[in-house]
């Protein structure tokens, strides 16, 4: 199944991020990061309840959370320059709008935003662009994979409308990174399990640090 990862992560940005974080190649390819699994866990539950479209939308929402958090963090880091900085601001604003739209549509059924540790990829020009290309390509492939599963046509119409925006983002980031914006005559879709595995393998989805305790204070009083 390695080819799928390589297809989605053609430049190795996600893998590199995982390896930089101390995740071995074996672990990375195995995709055993518990946080990612937890983040996606709500979708199958909704699916089992018969709400197929809610499950698909929540799956898309996790990807939108990841993208919006990535670009927002990049903008806040103030580490980018020139066209990359401008692209991060513009694309980040769009991804945040996507998140808002999904949240409004799903209401209380919306999955909560996971916590992301992008491990420095938002804080330097080259790693940022490399990861952005991988994210956008992944999102495009994921939307394509899920669109045929949607039952309600208005939801499908919305997914297609967002899919084309993600494709523009992918081309934009590829251009900025210096790789061909459009290579294939036919783009393959990516099934959910593979997208989950790729996202999980990055180690970008993490658990929240514990900042509360029941210990007796020893402050100066």
């Amino acid at each position, binding site marked *: 199944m390695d080819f799928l990862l390589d297809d989605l992560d053609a430049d190795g940005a996600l893998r590199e991020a995982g390896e930089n974080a101390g995740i071995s190649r074996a672990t990375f390819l195995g995709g055993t990061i518990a946080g990612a699994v937890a983040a996606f866990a709500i979708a199958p539950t909704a699916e089992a309840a018969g709400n197929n479209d809610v499950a698909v939308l929540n799956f898309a929402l996790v990807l939108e959370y990841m993208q919006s958090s990535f670009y*927002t963090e990049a903008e806040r880091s103030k*580490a980018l320059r020139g066209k990359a900085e401008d692209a991060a601001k513009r694309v980040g604003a769009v991804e945040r709008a996507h998140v808002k739209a999904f949240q409004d549509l799903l209401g209380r059924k919306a999955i909560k935003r996971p916590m992301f540790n992008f491990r420095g990829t938002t*804080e330097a020009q080259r790693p940022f662009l490399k990861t952005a290309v991988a994210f956008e390509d992944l999102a495009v492939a994921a939307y394509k994979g899920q669109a045929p599963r949607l039952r309600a046509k208005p939801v499908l119409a*919305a997914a297609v409308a967002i899919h084309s925006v993600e494709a523009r983002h992918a081309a934009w980031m590829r251009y900025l990174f210096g790789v061909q914006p459009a290579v294939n005559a036919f783009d393959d879709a990516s099934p959910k399990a593979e997208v989950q595995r790729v996202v999980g393998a990055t180690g970008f989805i*993490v658990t929240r*640090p514990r900042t509360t*305790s029941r210990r007796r*204070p*020893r*402050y100066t009083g």
Partner: protein
Amino acid sequence: MTRRTAASAAGLGVVAGCAVAGLGGLLLAGDDSQATPRHAVLPASPRPALTVPPPTGLGDGARVAVWTSVLRSTTARARPSGDARPVARLARRTPEGTANIVLVSGRASDARRRVWVRVRLPALPNGTSGWVPRRALGAYQTSRTHLVVDRRALTATLLRDGQPVFHADVGIGRARWPTPRGRFYVRNRLTRYRSPAYGPLAFGTSARSERLTDWPAGGFVGIHGTDQPGLLPGRVSHGCIRMRNGDIVRLSRLIKAGTPLTIR
């Protein structure tokens, strides 16, 4: 125009004419009225289920503080370089067993393109900052609140997005154990302990007493409740910031770890 090209052009014209006629025939075929083309009766596209709002910028500027946790013990250095002078050692855990968090104030890359992060340190002298490798730190989180303690007015004011949302009287350190002045942050929150002197809950901060350096666990300044509310407001503590229990409970609903703290 040569005879050959003229013939080609004429041929193309015929083909184009047939194509238009054929398209017209397709559009009109089967329509009783012969006046309405078929495309006009195709069902309308469904309205998308989502309403995507217009993209908007962050617009939060300096009012958002960024903090992170220490993932692995590391040394904070004076410059973003592994060769730079050590400033302080950062552990993964606080003395209370919670994640050790730091406030982020800058970034840089070294000659080997490794990212370094400048952080505000929970170390003496108060106000110390240092550079740590990005890989030693966890996820970035943000805080939109900022707690300001005024030592002269003996008050605490919480700002959210720059606007005051909480105000209370406080007790601070006596003259011989002054509450330190400076820019700090809330490190953790302790609850359900059995110690009436600290009230129902306590926040740990990155501020440290400059006098009580041998105090257990490092002499950190806390913000907490009290079993002696009658002493507030006043200069009554060993350096901690005391509030009435009702106030500290109210404050606890408004702030989390990572909130910047200014003591002036």
